[in-house]
């Protein structure tokens, strides 16, 4: 009986998700993409990815990084990714930028290419 009364006056336990933001902690393993200023193209993340979600592609022709002699960088396919963060863990130069963004369901497929290429421009400007 006490349980009933306390529950009548308590806040609702659920949230109206699309209208209210979901409470996700900052520790959450969400969207992640490689920073091309740091990436050395070693392909370790591709080797360890259990979902085969990472492919190595060539850097854009107008960008060269002396630290990246092979000129390749990883692209994460978020449709395949299981967000185990093995790539983030195994990266020898800690090139992955992580976030707690989780709402990636969409009609089109997403990958990390556009986000990674943005990091180049940031680096060029700075």
């Amino acid at each position, binding site marked *: 009986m006490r*349980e009933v009364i306390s529950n009548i006056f308590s806040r609702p*336990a659920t949230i109206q998700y699309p209208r209210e933001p979901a409470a*996700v*902690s900052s*520790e*959450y393993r969400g969207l992640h993409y490689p920073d091309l200023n740091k990436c050395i193209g070693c392909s370790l993340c591709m*080797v360890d990815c*259990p*979902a085969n979600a990472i492919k190595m592609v060539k850097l854009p022709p107008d960008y060269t990084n002396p630290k990246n002699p092979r000129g390749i960088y990883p692209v994460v396919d978020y449709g395949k990714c299981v967000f185990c963060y*093995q790539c983030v863990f195994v990266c020898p130069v800690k090139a992955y930028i992580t976030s707690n963004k989780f709402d990636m369901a969409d009609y089109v497929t997403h990958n990390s290419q556009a986000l990674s290429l943005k990091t180049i421009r940031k680096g060029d400007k700075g």
Partner: protein
Amino acid sequence: MAKYVEVPVGPQHPALHEPIMLRVKLDGEVVEGVDIVTGYNHRGVEKLGEKNSWVRDIYIFSRICGICNAVHAQTYTQGVEKLMGVEPPPRAKYIRTIVMELERIHSHMLINAVMAEAIGFDTLFMLIMRDRERVMHLKEIITGQRVHADIHIIGGVKRDLKPETAEKVLRVLDYIEARLKHYKKVFEEDYTIRKRLEDVGKISKQEALKHSLVGPVLRASGVPSDVRVDDPYSAYDELKPNIVVRHEGDSLARMLLRWDEALESVRLIRAAIKNMPKGNPVPKAIKRAAGKGEVFSRVEAPRGELIYHIVSTGGPKPYRIKVRTPSFNNIVNSGFAYIGERLADVPVILTSFDPCISCTERVLVVDEKKGLRKWVPFMALSRGEIRVA
């Protein structure tokens, strides 16, 4: 000759949450026999494990089961560590233990909630699931995700436990402990729950041992057996868990035993945080190749004893990994427990075994001719080689 009515319960049935089929033979309302048919959820995980590297397999095998994923990862990782001769740092062992015990609490809360729903007590289901969300949140702040911990790595863990996170865990545990005690009292005292569960699906000590049942089902029948005590792994040799045993052997005893175990897990997490050694639990480099040999690794999952047999012929990939999950024993061998009960009690008894079908089904039932029934390989059926008359 007695004539039976055969009632198929499942594989898709409102009382069951996962695809398993019980062919229940009835004489009136009384169950005369149960055929347990599995094989609806086969995914070929063991073969997939043979084709991937040692590191990738941590994530593949932890995805056998959603609820006990850290336990699967622990069993696999400790086996591989033994094979490679790697010893994880003591702090990593404690962090693994905390994650596994949190998993035990939320697993036991889940099955008790499902039991409340199965007997028609939906409010209790909602309340337990609301409080279970707090435990899931603790797992999220420690590991990074509510369900899949993915914190194990060969030779340690992937994340350190921050002091402020540990404080928050202790704070939430106070709330969880009060709620667990409350729910245990509800299960002990509620008239409806007692009527539905008491003396239903009784398993004696001899029967439980004879049919090699494991985990809470075995302990509720009065057998003190727990891998955490019998063969300590991770930090359990220092934390010294107490074995919870009940002697009634009925469905109610199995559910109450789970509440007691969840309370014991709360104590273990508190002790682990208090006695946590200092040091760096995150390994700098991962070992990627193992020598020749085979290991046998076992862990107490929330549902019972989980066994991995790992064979290596050297090199970057395992040769063979055999997984024996606790649900396999508890579901397939427990057909005798239904005999003599009413049809309405069948879902209750099945739920009290805490069935985890996705754990169990890595085996395919191969064709076997039994009277009119024919069990055929799934692939042969899909290729159209077998005609169903």
